[in-house]
Structure formats: C-alpha cells, structure tokens
C-alpha cells in the first residue's frame, strides 16, 4: 500500500464498519418482514398468498439501485419527506432483503415433510402447536445457510448506497480516490475488504451449518 493511500486507513475501516452495520440492520428488518410475507405465502387464504407472491416478485424484480433511487428521491419528493441517505438506504435494502428472506422462510417451512405435520396432528396438537414445536424448529435449520447467503447479498447491495451519498465502504473508497487521484489501488483495497468480510461470513455460516445438523 502506498503511503498516500495508507494514510486513509481509518476511513477504510470506518467505511467497513458502516457497511457491516447497515447491512446487518437491513437483514434484521428484512428477516422480520420476510417471516411475515413467508407465512402469508403458505396461508390458507388465497388473497394473502397472492399478496405475498406479488410482494416477493416485485421486490425481487426491481434492481436495488432503482429502489435506492426511488426511496431517496422518489419518496422525498412525493411524500415531502426529507429522507436521509441512511433512512432511504435502509428502506431500500430492507425491501430487497425481505423479498429474498420470504423465499427462504417459505422454502424452510415447506422442507418439513407432510409426515411431520401428520405425526404432530395425530398427537393432538393444534396448528400453532404444530408450528411452534415441530415445524419451526426444523425449518429454522433449513433456513440458516440461505440466510447467510441473503446477508452476503445484502452486504454487497449496500455498496449501492454510495450512489445516494451514504458514506459506507464503497463511498469511502470513492472519496479517497477523489482526494488522492489514485484509482486502481484504492478500488482494489475496497474489493479485498469486501472479499475478506464476505468470505469470513460465509465461513462462519458453513461452520454454523455443520453445528446445526441433527447429529452432533
């Protein structure tokens, strides 16, 4: 690392911390919304099912960049809201993450076999008991690995917050690039930092996955 760029180490690290924070927040909120939408997907009411499908498909189909733009400029003008880049980025990231999470939740629940429902029902459990004691504990294990994938994907999407001026890792890099006039080295450092963060997360995820297998 050249001394010119190295002098900005603190800016790089702060940027990385902001990236971790906002993507974690979006994963949390997206997980909450995703559980609700995912449960709607398997509801017995057709209207709820369709609503959930529409939600998932719309937010899976619109590019996150377009969502950032829509949240930051669109909502600000349309609702006369002065949304901060942070608020807009959180909303946009949550929308994308929740669409992904709703699929993860649905797949998790559907992975629990029919026989499990039958066995639980035939022991006299109600729907909510079947869910709580038999289906959910199994679904959670299935949901874990793809949730790690959603986190990594959300973390990468958070780079797009740079477009609306939110200073996370990518924007930090772009600012350093403007200040120093050095492109390649700065961008490479940013890329390496993303790689290290995401690869570490995927390693942690893999070890959690092993730990979560039924046989210990």
């Amino acid at each position, binding site marked *: 690392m050249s001394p010119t760029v190295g002098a900005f180490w603190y800016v790089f690290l702060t940027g990385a911390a902001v990236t971790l924070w906002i993507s974690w927040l979006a994963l949390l909120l997206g997980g909450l919304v995703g559980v609700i939408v995912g449960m709607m997907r398997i509801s017995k009411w057709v209207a709820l099912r369709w609503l959930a499908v529409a939600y998932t498909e*719309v937010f899976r189909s619109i*590019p996150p960049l377009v969502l950032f733009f829509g949240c930051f400029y669109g*909502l600000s*003008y*349309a609702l006369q809201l002065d949304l901060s880049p942070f608020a807009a980025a959180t909303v946009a990231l949550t929308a994308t993450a929740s669409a992904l999470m709703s699929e993860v939740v649905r797949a998790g629940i559907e992975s629990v076999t029919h026989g499990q429902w039958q066995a639980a029902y035939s022991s006299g459990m109600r729907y909510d008991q079947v869910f709580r004691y038999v289906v959910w504990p199994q679904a959670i294990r299935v949901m874990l690995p793809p949730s790690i994938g959603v986190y990594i994907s959300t973390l*990468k999407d958070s*780079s797009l917050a740079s477009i609306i001026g939110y200073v996370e890792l990518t924007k930090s890099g772009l600012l350093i690039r403007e200040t120093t006039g050095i492109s*390649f080295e700065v961008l490479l450092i940013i890329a390496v930092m993303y*790689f290290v963060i995401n690869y570490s997360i995927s390693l942690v995820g893999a070890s959690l996955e092993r730990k979560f297998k039924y046989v210990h």
Partner: protein
Amino acid sequence: MYEFNLAGLLPYIDPLPRAILLTLWLSLLAIVMSVAVGVFGALCRTSTNLIPRFLGAAYVEVLRNIPLLVVIYLIFFGLAQVGLRVDGFNSALIALTLNAGAYMTEIFRGGLLAIPNGQYEAARSQGMTGPQLYRYVVFPQVFRIIYAPLGNLIIGIVIGSSLASVIGVEEVTTWMRRAGDETFRYMESFLAVGVIYVVLAQTINIGRIATGNWLLSKAPVGARR
C-alpha cells in the same frame, strides 16, 4: 401536496425504447458470455487436476464476495489508470460477465455433480461416445436440475445490468435518473422503470416456469408424485 403526474415524463418517452433495447442487449451479451465462462469454470472445478480446480474455486469465491459495483469501478476507473481504457458499455459487460460467470460455474458444477457415476458407466457400456453420452444422457439430466437456478440467475443479470448506469451507459436506469433529474418527477420515473423491470423479470420467470412444466410433462409417470 404532491401531484402524481405521469404525463410529465412524456417529453422523455422518445429515448425510452432505445434504453430498453440497450438493457436487453447488454443483458443478452452478458448471459451468453457468462454461460461460456460458467461451462469452462465448471469443467475446471470438476477437473481431476488440482491446479484448475483451485483456480476455478478461487475465481468463484472472489467474484461472489465482491459487489458488482466495485468490479465495475475497478474495470472502468482502475484499468484506465494502469493504461487500459475500456468504455462504459464494455466495462459493464466485462464486470457482469465475470460476476455472473462465477454463479454460472456453481450452477453447472452442481448439475454435473448430481449425475451419478453409474450413468456414465451405463452409457459407456452401451457403446456411446463422449459427445453422445453428454448429448443423450448427461445433458438432459443436468438441464432438469439447473433450469430453475439458471432462470433466477438470468433475472439477476438483467437486474445487475442496471449498474451500468453509474458509468454512463444509456440504459433504462440512466433514463430513469435523467428523466427524474430534469423534471423532478422522481416518483413517476421510478415507478415507470420499476414496472419495466418487473415485466422483464417476470417474462423470464414465466419462461422458467413454462420450462419446468414442459419438463414435468415429459417426465415418466413414475417420476411424478
């Protein structure tokens, strides 16, 4: 009070078809090129030789863990600094291809690994040559496994092509930003472009579902239920 007014975008309607075509063209090229990269990558990753296997794995891990936006900047700004000037369209195309190629590699590898060794042995024992074996036995089975993730990845490529707007490629997202900036009809331009992307993605999605139904209709009776 904000008045929703889609008509405010009318002066910008002329360049829109061109922008949509550019999005489609960029996506199409990226799909074709990343399929080629993916096939090659999958062959590397399933090779018996350690070196291609390692290189394939490294390629996949690196590209899957770096945001597409950063890859685009690296190629557009970064390479320019070391003397390689690539224009916006080609930078976006290369970045998209590298990015999607990593996912393609994993999809194809998964498909290849899912075919049990006995299938190869059975085909060989009946005297099939290499190409026949792939054409009649391996590929039809691989396709059944990969068509669904492939459809999702293709949607991902179309969505990813929106990032070309940050380096000035005049595709749909750029149109949205320009129309918004010049009319302050941000919400309208966002919704219009949102609809366009939803239509594009869902068209691919319907194609994927239709492929699934077609495959199911061809499945032997015993394979259903």
